[in-house]
């Protein structure tokens, strides 16, 4: 096996860095998607809600 070529006689061209079918790309996405699939922590939902409320009250203030 030679590190310059994909192992196992794969015909995936090595120069194609992000071929969606190769093992590295698949594993990279699997890890990333595992984190993405976690529920958004409450602290962020609370924060966004507060920011929305702050913006809404600013707008009300500006309209007066």
């Amino acid at each position, binding site marked *: 096996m030679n590190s310059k070529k994909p*192992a196992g006689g794969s015909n995936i061209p090595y120069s194609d860095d992000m071929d969606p079918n190769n093992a590295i790309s698949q594993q990279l996405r699997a890890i990333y998607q595992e984190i993405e699939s976690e529920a958004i922590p409450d602290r962020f939902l609370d924060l966004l809600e507060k*920011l929305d409320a702050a913006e809404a009250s600013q707008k009300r203030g500006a309209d007066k």
Partner: protein
Amino acid sequence: MLAALPSLRAFAMSLVRNSHNADDLVQDTILKAWGKQDSFEVGTNIKAWLFTILRNDFYSKMRKNGREVEDKDGAMTASLSVHPEQYGAMDLLDFRKALDGLPEDQREAIILVGASGFSYEEAAEICSCAIGTIKSRVSRARNNLHETLKIEGEGEFGPDKNSIATTSRAFMH
């Protein structure tokens, strides 16, 4: 902004070596983005804009605080559960370690392009560098991962025979 949060968190986890710090970074990014929402051009990519803010914030904190606060293993490795029954779980763990072992610029590049779904052009913009630089970092990252995983898969010190078989199988596709 809500829609971009899961991906933003995943990116933060890849930069920061501690999941609590990663979420702090995301929180600071939300606040910063809110503070300068006037500078966001409607119709441009909000996800790329948020990633840029997060990345800049991360590197300015790094310059200020140094690296001693980081854990040895990356947040990606530390924060994720392993499901042994899941096909390929062992080689995923090896993969995470290999990913954590990459130089920062390479890890960032391969994650932005290979996992976050950005084009080379967008990734270059987020990292404020040339497209060619991103391409070469991604390519070096891939070479390094290949090399590391091959060594781990073929070495005598692998966790067990099953994981070696799994690692090898992953490269046979």
